[in-house]
């Protein structure tokens, strides 16, 4: 079920009504779980079994960690993490490994190559891993122990954590220690309507007006179509794709944050104006924050982080970024994308450690532009998962200079990309106190008008595939 479908609006209204109905106040968790399971199974009911199986594994093993014998805690937590990783590996990466060993026509190869990728598996599996590690560390879980002493109560809380529909299929990746303590009775008066309005209007605008329109122009980056376009057109489309992927995912995250708030749950920001980053390090503090903080908290720091010398720090960075790349998809191009970002972080760190650059506005603008351009060029690996096509694309970018540009494509791509830059600039001007919130209502009125009159065709969110 897509957030931008009429079915979803109906579903949301019914769930919201039942959730705050005084007679059902005691059953708010059950209402949310039922609604979330319905939401997940709407298009492919069979996938529900996998989600429930994954949830059950996490409930059982995390309960054992919390309530089992102390000396077995680590073993239970480790088994829980391993099972989560195996589930993810089987459904997401078996086809990649099978390609190396089996032919497509082979019956075994065909079985492995055609394993379906359940929607949202990367997100809810990572949440399962977060649960296992968090209960093992036992840091912020007092309310689990106090409020969910019985297995059934505990199971309900974990099932809600794993299945809560606003973040179920495309994140943000919510960590157990952030979400589970929030599970308690919620009141209608507690809703911050202005916050919800801002999130939903901005989110739907970015998704339906910007991303959904841009996708029909950037479509031509696909193989083999890009070969017929001039360098200028290709370059514009690539920058358009960069804006599209931001608008698509940041839009989705804002909608998810707004929806969660409607039910009394708070998610952290997933995007913090990433295209204004002056370095890759800053970019990863601003882009898909829930993933980067997950990787930092549960992978980079346990690997030793930056505490074991320069060489080990750099290796850790590379490893984490390659795994982060692979998390996006079972194709080598995603690993190369991760490697590119990892190398950029390492090189950047080397420069920062050895060269002292005085900061001023011109240098800052140059750094922002450089980071944005490099990040944008790397997105081509998302659009063209076949690496041979990526090379062909860059060849065309270099060779097609003499061709006449497609001005219609360029004009519309620039027009629909413009709101992404305006969004960043508006934030910057507010940050510098050149603008206040006083006239925001005009922008929100315009955005609402464009959502109603100028939405693109309904398309899946790009991050659904991950």
């Amino acid at each position, binding site marked *: 079920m897509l957030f931008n479908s009429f079915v979803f609006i109906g579903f949301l209204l019914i769930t919201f009504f039942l959730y705050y109905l005084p007679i059902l106040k005691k059953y708010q968790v059950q209402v949310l779980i039922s609604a979330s399971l319905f939401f997940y199974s709407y298009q492919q009911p069979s996938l529900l079994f996998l989600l429930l199986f994954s949830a059950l594994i996490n409930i059982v093993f995390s309960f054992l960690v919390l309530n089992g014998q102390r000396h077995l805690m680590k073993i239970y937590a480790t088994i829980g993490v391993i099972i989560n990783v195996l589930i993810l590996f089987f459904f997401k990466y078996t086809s990649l490994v099978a390609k190396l060993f089996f032919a497509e026509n082979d019956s075994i190869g065909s079985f492995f190559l055609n394993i379906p990728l359940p929607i949202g598996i990367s997100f809810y599996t990572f949440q399962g891993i977060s649960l296992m590690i968090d209960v093992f560390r036992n840091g912020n879980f007092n309310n689990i122990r106090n409020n969910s002493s019985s297995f059934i109560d505990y199971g309900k809380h974990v099932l809600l954590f794993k299945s809560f529909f606003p973040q179920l299929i495309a994140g943000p990746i919510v960590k157990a220690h952030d979400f589970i303590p929030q599970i308690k009775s919620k009141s209608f008066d507690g809703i911050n*309507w202005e916050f919800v309005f801002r999130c939903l209007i901005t989110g739907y605008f970015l998704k339906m007006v910007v991303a959904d329109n841009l996708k029909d122009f950037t479509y031509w980056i696909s193989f083999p179509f890009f*070969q017929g376009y001039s360098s200028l057109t290709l370059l514009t489309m690539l920058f358009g794709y960069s804006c599209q992927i931001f608008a698509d995912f940041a839009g989705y995250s804002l909608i998810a944050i707004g929806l969660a708030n409607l039910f009394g749950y708070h998610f952290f920001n997933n995007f913090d104006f990433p295209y204004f980053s002056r370095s890759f390090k800053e970019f990863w503090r601003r882009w898909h924050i829930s993933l980067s903080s997950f990787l930092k908290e549960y992978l980079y720091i346990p690997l030793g982080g930056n505490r074991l010398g320069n060489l080990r720090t750099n290796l850790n960075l590379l490893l984490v970024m390659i795994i982060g790349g692979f998390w996006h998809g079972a194709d080598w191009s995603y690993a190369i994308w991760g490697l590119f970002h990892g190398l950029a972080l390492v090189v950047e760190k080397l420069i920062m450690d050895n060269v002292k650059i005085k900061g001023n506005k011109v240098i800052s603008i140059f750094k922002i532009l450089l980071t944005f351009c490099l990040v944008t060029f790397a997105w081509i690996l998302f659009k063209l998962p076949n690496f041979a096509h990526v090379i062909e694309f860059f060849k065309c970018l270099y060779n*097609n200079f003499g061709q006449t540009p497609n001005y219609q494509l360029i004009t519309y791509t620039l*027009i629909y990309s413009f709101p992404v830059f305006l969004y960043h600039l508006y934030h910057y001007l507010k940050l510098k106190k050149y603008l206040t919130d006083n006239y925001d209502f005009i922008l929100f009125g315009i955005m609402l008008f464009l959502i109603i009159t100028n939405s693109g*065709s309904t398309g899946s969110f790009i991050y659904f595939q991950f």
Partner: protein
Amino acid sequence: MIKKSLFIFLVIFTSYAIFVSIYSDNFTNISAHHWQENVNKAESFIYDENSVYSNIILGSSLSNRLIIDSLPNCFNLSFGGQSIFEGLAILTRIDNLPKSVFIEMNIVLKEENEDFIESLFSILYYPKKYLKVLRGKFQPITNFGDIVNTRITKFILPKIIVLNVNNSKSNPNLFEKLLEIQVDRYNKIPKEKKMEQNFNRLQTYVSSLEKKGVKIVFFEMPINYKLNNLPRAQIVRNAFFDKFPSNKYNFISIPSNENYITSDGLHLKPDEALKYTLFFKNQMDSIN
């Protein structure tokens, strides 16, 4: 803040709705991309209750190349990037049916795009019927983009073309590469299950139209001559003759004495499209 935003929205929306209702005839069918072109075409067909067409062409981007100005009393309900099924699905949902429906034979193995049909006949069907401003044709950014684009084309482009006239080059191998992709595709035998599913679906649509007194004519759009007799083209062609016997249905076959080159293996070049449209018109006249 929410109330103020909603007020601003209402002011802008109402003003634009009034503007559109007054000047709707001045808006042309601008489309920024093929999906929008499809939506605009479908909406103008669905909501235009005054025009009744004798002939309707249903097809994909291949039939979209037919020059409709040369085909009087005919509406080309062909959609780029889609199949024949979207047009058929639209026809089963409207009242004003034509005398004859011409169904393209080439792209029959593509699935029906249910999202497209759903978007046309969704909860917004009636609001769109009475509030033109909600239709794709009147999208403000698309129309603004067209103004910008027209200015670029009018003022900047000629200068750039003059500058580039001696340097301009196109990718000479592109056509061969695209044709090669199509040759590979047309050498593959289509999956039987898919063939059966799609032909069953087509038969259901056809019999539903026939019950309402519509005459069905099948036609094959010319593609590159090297593809004409490859396995995929032959299997699909034979399946049509098998499911829809020629003693019961009319067929317009590819003119045997012409070798079409096309721009990419599948889509006719403008001069070829004109040539084929004239042939098609003659056939259409003789059938009607």
